């Protein structure tokens, strides 16, 4: 039997997906792909990122070489112009003929440009291809103002692109609201006000009548309501139209308003021709998203196998970030579905201060989710989508799903409740059943399940759901969830801490020889390094400790994206003299450093090359500064308000206490960073309740709060003890910190640590205050040892020529890293972006 010839017309995302999948089949086909664009398939979804610094090459989904390797003949930059169905071949613009047994049309779509007089002007552009981006960029250089016509999903993406190009950006929409397809009126309104806050001007209910030459800018748009808008360029993004001309000429059935009609096998009216993606019309609908296109490709491909599948339409729910704003839409977001002639019920949560809008549409009996709209916060999207897709029963009070969670109405979503048909990863179409099967087949970690099922290897949005599914399944099987540090140590951090302490081990090699295997890695080395430092507080850059330190600890500074470092001198309690401020200013000026005030009441100096660090620190140390340990998993800062020395309301001297605490615990290595603050009265200006340990003054002494944090998952600290005198306060903090250092997991903040302690806060009080474990003396002694061995790591470093060798960029040259280039912004340096660097280095 001859090998079947497959010709794929179009090399967009869907065409490429089909080709990749087909080449991976066991059955051999002769595959030819023909793309009209001059380059192989690329990721169109993330097109606008090219304007925020991404290289067009980063968008590539494949290369010519890759196609060659997988045995696919690929031709780019030569469009297919006709199909000869009788002889089963296609003919290209350059007159080449390609014979086929099966033909796949993946010709995609083109942007719709409304037939407005003047819309053919040179400054009128579209937004779909990499070449379009070039044209937009070129036109943007000539002007200051840009307009996007179309306030849908793509239009707002494009507005983001114009904004990134530095244009004054407007969005002009015909309909009364933005994203009318996906959002209801309220959600659309919230989105609009959030977008306007970003200085993108939104004009809705505007019909453009004509485009003429402008007075102040290149073009002038005249609207039906008599208004007008001047601009230097216009990008049309008012919807897409299927590329169906080729099919039409070949006599294939086409929908009334365009689109190649396909059946649920993705077959066109010619049984040897399939159509997939945005050129195809299924059930009277064009599917303008990538995921349904992929599902069509799967269905079309399966027709060549023994087990044909069908395409049944696709869910158009979507979650995305537009101009940095989270937007999600699920199912019937407008609440138009009638169930037994009854109108669905809606539940709405709208918060103007936090800028959050959430609506769910629920069946009249309140049992099923029909749709949802989320603007400003998509954290509920995954849960809602699962409820919707799997037709799961809602809780009795469905509104609790979207109300801000607190302990009273928490609706923690359990992966256990999901049916096995539930899709966990929609990019790669992996169901809960697939994951269960992978675990049954022997996978015991998330990583193994990922590599076996490919789940969460697309956009990664399902990572948390995947992990909870795997963990729940493993737990249900009685598998103990592995808390081994890494492949080199079959112990938790807490176990290792204990073994190192009891064995009095002082080197990584000793620890590895006794308790581990292999060479170590970037997980266990810093962990052991940190434990050694917590126990013995040796200088961390000693030759035996240096290779253990994470990048930042290794160079005693914080690495930034371009490989330069930032420097944070310690400013205890946030108190600094004028002379010291001047020194920081002088140093920043001398070395051209970018300076920024941090949230921890100190000053960060950015843009130091690795070889400048010792020189800069010599000057800082000379002026009396010490390292701030901003690079370490260690105590960072102790913030303070001015307290009763200045403030009319202060009841204690919060600054003195903050300085004392910061100096006491500075430099101590811990499982994660530790932050603290001291407020001089109950007004709490130092925000002590958002810290790992916070102190708030009372008339009678100090209240101690523990286990709070800001950041990704903020948590208020819990009140631990009240009205303490100075000595008791410090004693409790000593014990608390040391107990945390001993027993927490790697990279576990105090809040998570406490939640995982059996008995929680009460237990912690019993250990620290009541000394239930009889550990208090030991914890205090351990702390005293650490305090005794404190040294400023930078002072030690600059005094040791052997250590300074580490800070050379090159061991054999005095040159600098030529890739580090700065540009000026607001009178300060910042790293050049890719395109700026190109311009600077080629100029």
């Amino acid at each position, binding site marked *: 039997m001859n090998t079947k010839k497959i010709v794929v017309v179009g090399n967009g995302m869907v065409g490429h997906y089909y080709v990749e999948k087909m080449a991976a089949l066991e059955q051999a086909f002769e595959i030819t792909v023909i793309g009209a664009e001059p380059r192989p398939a690329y990721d169109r979804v993330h097109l606008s990122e090219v304007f925020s610094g991404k290289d067009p090459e980063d968008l590539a989904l494949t290369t010519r070489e890759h196609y060659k390797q997988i045995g696919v003949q690929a031709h780019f930059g030569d469009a297919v112009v006709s199909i000869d169905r009788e002889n089963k071949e296609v003919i290209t613009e350059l007159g080449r003929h390609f014979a086929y047994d099966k033909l796949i049309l993946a010709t995609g779509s083109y942007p719709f440009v409304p037939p407005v007089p003047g819309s053919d002007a040179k400054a009128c552009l579209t937004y779909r291809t990499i070449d379009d981006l070039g044209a937009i960029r070129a036109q943007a250089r000539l002007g200051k103002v840009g307009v996007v016509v179309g306030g849908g999903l793509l239009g707002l993406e494009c507005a983001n692109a114009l904004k990134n190009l530095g244009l004054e950006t407007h969005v002009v929409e015909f309909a009364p609201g933005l994203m009318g397809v996906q959002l209801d009126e309220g959600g659309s309104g919230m989105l609009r006000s959030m977008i306007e806050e970003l200085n993108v001007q939104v004009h809705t209910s505007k019909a453009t009548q004509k485009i003429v030459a402008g007075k102040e800018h290149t073009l002038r748009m005249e609207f039906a309501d008599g208004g007008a808008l001047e601009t230097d360029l216009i990008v049309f993004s008012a919807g897409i139209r299927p590329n169906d001309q080729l099919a039409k000429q070949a006599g294939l059935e086409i929908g009334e308003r365009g689109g190649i009609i396909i059946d649920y096998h993705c077959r066109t009216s010619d049984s040897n021709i399939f159509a997939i993606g945005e050129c195809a019309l299924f059930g009277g609908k064009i599917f303008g998203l990538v995921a349904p296109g992929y599902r069509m490709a799967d269905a079309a491909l399966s027709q060549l196998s023994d087990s044909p599948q069908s395409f049944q339409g696709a869910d158009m729910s979507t979650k995305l970030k537009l101009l940095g704003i989270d937007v999600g839409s699920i199912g019937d977001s407008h609440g138009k579905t009638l169930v037994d002639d009854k109108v669905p019920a809606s539940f709405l949560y709208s918060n103007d201060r936090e800028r959050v809008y959430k609506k769910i549409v629920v069946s009249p009996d309140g049992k099923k989710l029909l749709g949802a709209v989320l603007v400003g916060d998509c954290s509920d999207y995954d849960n809602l989508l699962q409820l919707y897709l799997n037709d799961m029963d809602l809780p009795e009070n469905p509104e609790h799903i979207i109300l801000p969670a607190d302990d009273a109405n928490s609706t923690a979503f359990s992966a256990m409740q999901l049916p096995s048909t539930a899709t966990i990863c929609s990019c790669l179409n992996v169901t809960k059943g697939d994951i269960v099967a992978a675990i049954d087949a022997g996978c015991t970690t998330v990583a193994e399940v990922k590599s076996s099922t490919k789940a969460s290897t697309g956009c990664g949005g399902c990572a948390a759901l995947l992990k909870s599914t795997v963990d729940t399944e493993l737990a249900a099987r009685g598998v103990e969830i592995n808390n081994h540090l890494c*492949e080199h140590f079959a112990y938790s951090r807490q176990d290792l801490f204990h073994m190192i302490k009891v064995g009095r081990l002082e080197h990584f090699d000793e620890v590895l020889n006794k308790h581990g295997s292999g060479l*170590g890695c970037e997980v266990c080395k810093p962990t052991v390094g940190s434990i050694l430092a917590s126990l013995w507080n040796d200088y961390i850059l000693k030759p035996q400790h240096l290779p253990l330190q*994470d990048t930042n600890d290794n160079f005693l500074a914080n*690495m930034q*994206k371009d490989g330069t470092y930032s420097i944070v001198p310690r400013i205890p309690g946030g108190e600094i003299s004028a002379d010291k401020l001047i020194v920081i200013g002088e140093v920043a000026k001398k070395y051209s450093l970018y300076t920024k005030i941090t949230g921890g009441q100190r000053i960060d100096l950015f843009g130091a090359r*690795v070889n400048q660090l010792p020189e800069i620190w010599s000057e800082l140390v000379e002026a009396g500064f010490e390292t701030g340990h901003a690079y370490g998993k260690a105590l960072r800062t102790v913030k303070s308000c001015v307290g009763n020395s200045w403030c009319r309301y202060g009841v204690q001297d919060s600054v003195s206490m903050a300085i004392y605490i910061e100096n006491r615990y500075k430099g101590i290595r811990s499982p994660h960073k530790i932050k603290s603050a001291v407020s001089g009265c109950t007004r709490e200006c130092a925000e002590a309740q958002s810290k790992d340990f916070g102190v708030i003054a009372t008339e009678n002494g100090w209240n101690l709060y523990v286990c709070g944090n800001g950041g990704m998952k903020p948590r208020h600290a819990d009140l631990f003890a009240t009205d303490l005198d100075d000595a008791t306060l410090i004693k409790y903090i000593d014990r608390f910190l040391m107990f945390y250092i001993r027993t927490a997991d790697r990279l576990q903040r105090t809040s998570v640590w406490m939640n995982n302690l059996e008995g929680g806060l009460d237990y912690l009080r019993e250990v620290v205050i009541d000394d239930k474990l009889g550990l208090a003396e030991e914890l205090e002694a351990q702390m005293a040892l650490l305090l005794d061995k404190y040294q400023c790591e930078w002072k030690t470093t600059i005094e040791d020529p052997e250590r300074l060798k580490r800070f050379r960029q090159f*061991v*054999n040259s005095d040159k600098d890293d030529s890739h*580090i280039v700065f540009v000026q912004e607001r009178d300060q340096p910042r790293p050049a972006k890719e395109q700026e660097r190109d311009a600077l280095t080629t100029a």
Partner: protein
Amino acid sequence: MTNAALSHSPFDPIAIFDRSDLQENAGVCVLINDVQVAVFYLPKESPSIFALHNWDPLGKANVLYRGIVGDLNGERVVASPLYKQHFSLDTGRCLEEESVCVPVYEAFIEGETVTITLQSRCHK
């Protein structure tokens, strides 16, 4: 001279420096004809010295020499200090992204002298 020393052409650009410039179980960087090469020294391994291009193709900065070295499933690797992807010290292959690879170069130690050439070792 060892065989290794003879195997590169006399015209290959090279860098020669002292063993004491190396950092045990960590990396340093050398410049050869404007090419930045990260050199890692694992005294207990054989070979004990590895040379990779210093450019992190995923983090897009010249930083690989500052990464932590170790092994993963028996493969000797350096972890990018920026985003922690692993690059094989022996082949330059990125363990997380199959299509990504950094060039690896010939490196050897004779007595107290370290030699790095721009001769790349091919592993594909």
